[in-house]
């Protein structure tokens, strides 16, 4: 083998080795890239599945929250109405109790007054004027009170 040919053979071999090495590297690198892809793809699948699940759950939670918020709104309205009714009823009760109390005082005054007027009538009917006057005087304040509240 001549030197020229030998050199060409060496160059060719070296080139072939270099090409083979480059190819090897590229193939390995490509395999790693595919491996990365596969892992990322698989993870992406899991993530997307979880995203779907969470999205569904979140939608349910938001519906529930919306329902609860709506209930709170209607309950707040109802409570306000009930409180308003209660306040009205309490005011009416206070007024009714005051009225009953005033009536009781009036009844007491009327009864006292009636008793005195009857005693006065009976005493005057048998000409016991002093007793008649005394009977009237003893109930004069009750009669005034009864007349004022009547």
């Amino acid at each position, binding site marked *: 083998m001549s030197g020229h040919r030998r050199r060409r053979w060496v160059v060719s071999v070296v*080139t*072939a080795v270099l*090409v083979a090495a480059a*190819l090897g590297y*590229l193939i390995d*690198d*490509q395999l790693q*890239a*595919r491996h*990365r*892809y596969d892992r*990322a793809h698989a*993870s*992406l699948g899991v*993530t*997307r599945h*979880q*995203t779907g699940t*969470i999205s569904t759950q*979140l939608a349910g*939670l938001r519906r*529930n*929250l919306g329902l*609860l*918020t709506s*209930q*709170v709104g209607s*309950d*707040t309205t109802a*409570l306000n109405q*009930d409180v308003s*009714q*209660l306040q009205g*009823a*309490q005011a*009416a*009760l206070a007024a*009714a*109790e005051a009225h*009953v109390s005033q*009536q*009781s005082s009036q*009844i007491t005054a*009327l*009864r006292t007054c*009636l*008793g005195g*007027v*009857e*005693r006065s*009538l*009976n*005493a*005057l*009917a*048998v*000409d016991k004027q002093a007793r*008649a006057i005394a009977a009237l005087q003893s109930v004069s304040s009750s009669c005034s009170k*009864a007349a004022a509240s*009547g």
Partner: protein
Amino acid sequence: MVAAVTLCAGLLAAAVWTDVTAHTRARNEETALAAADAHLATLRHDAALTNYAAAVTTGKRNALQGSITTTLGQLATTNAKLSTTTAHALVQGASISTLQTCLGGVQKALGQITAGDNTQAARDVSTVSGPCSLLDGGTNAGLVYPFDFPDPDVILTGQTYFAYATNSVAGNIQIIESTDLTHWAAVGNALPGLPTWAKPHYTWAPALAQVGGNFLLYYAANVTGSGKECISVASATQPQGPFIDRSTAPLECQLALGGSIDPASFVDANGSLYLLWKSGGPGSSKIWSEQLDAAGTAFAPGATATVLLTPGQPWEAGTVEAPDLVTTGGRYVLFFSGNNWDSASYAVGAATCSGPLGPCTDASPGPVLSSGPGVAGPGGPSVFTDRTGAYWIGFHGWVPGAVGFPNNRDLYVRRLTLTGPVPVVAAAG
């Protein structure tokens, strides 16, 4: 050679291209994964926030619903109280109306008495009898006339009941009338004038008798100058009066015994007429009987007064008075009052008698009618029959809590049973 070079170059170029493509896909996928992870994290965060908000809102809702329940409970309680109070106010309003009506009538009567018109005064009170009855406890105890009507005598003439009583609002002797024993209306003053010997304002305890076509009114009047009561008689052609007394002296007058009061007439089965009365005061009281003449205006010739009853029972406390004699089934039953007339201890007793002139013995150791629900100190008994022949007893009584003159002694009537050895007065209610 060239071909080999070209092949190698081609192989290398293809390898580089596919490598770059693989890297690009891997990066793209990793980018997508990162974005998806970020999105997932965001969603998880949102879900956590939403969960928290839901928990807070649930708590708020539960608190609100608790408040609503509490408020509704309070509202129900308040409404129930309001309902009760309103009903109470209605009842009290009715009571006030009743009181005002009754008081109005009594005040009018007082004005008429002051003006000297007893008849109108009696009518004024009579018109408010219904409301005043309610105030005196209603009709359960037998209350029928809620005004001062002491020592009553009740009779039935035709279809009408008449009741007479001691002087008060209507005048010397009060008359009221009824067709059903429940509703009574004022008639007026049975005795517009008094005999000259009688002092006004002390005409007590009337008793009626029908003799022939005449109505006789026995009553007690104060003998001027003596300070004592004695018995007289007036007559009329109708039960409403007016009864006229033309006497110049009392019919019966036991001044030495403290006077004579509480007359009662009695007609025996044979038509004989008797007068019963009471003499004396506490400790010396006696119930007497004496036959009257046929006209009933004087005692029968030769007749003498006989003591029927003296106090003998502890409950009587030394006083027997206000007699009323009735005969049934061949038996004679004497009703009378005992104890202090001005107290709740006053009561009605009964004795059985052999005849109109006695002797009499107590039918029971205690009274047959005493203070009870709706009446205090019942007295002045008057036994009569209704249209069917059934026995009734009329009597006066204080309203419990208003005992003693000048409070009212109201008129009561109750059924009476005389079939047993002891008379039975129907219980209140």
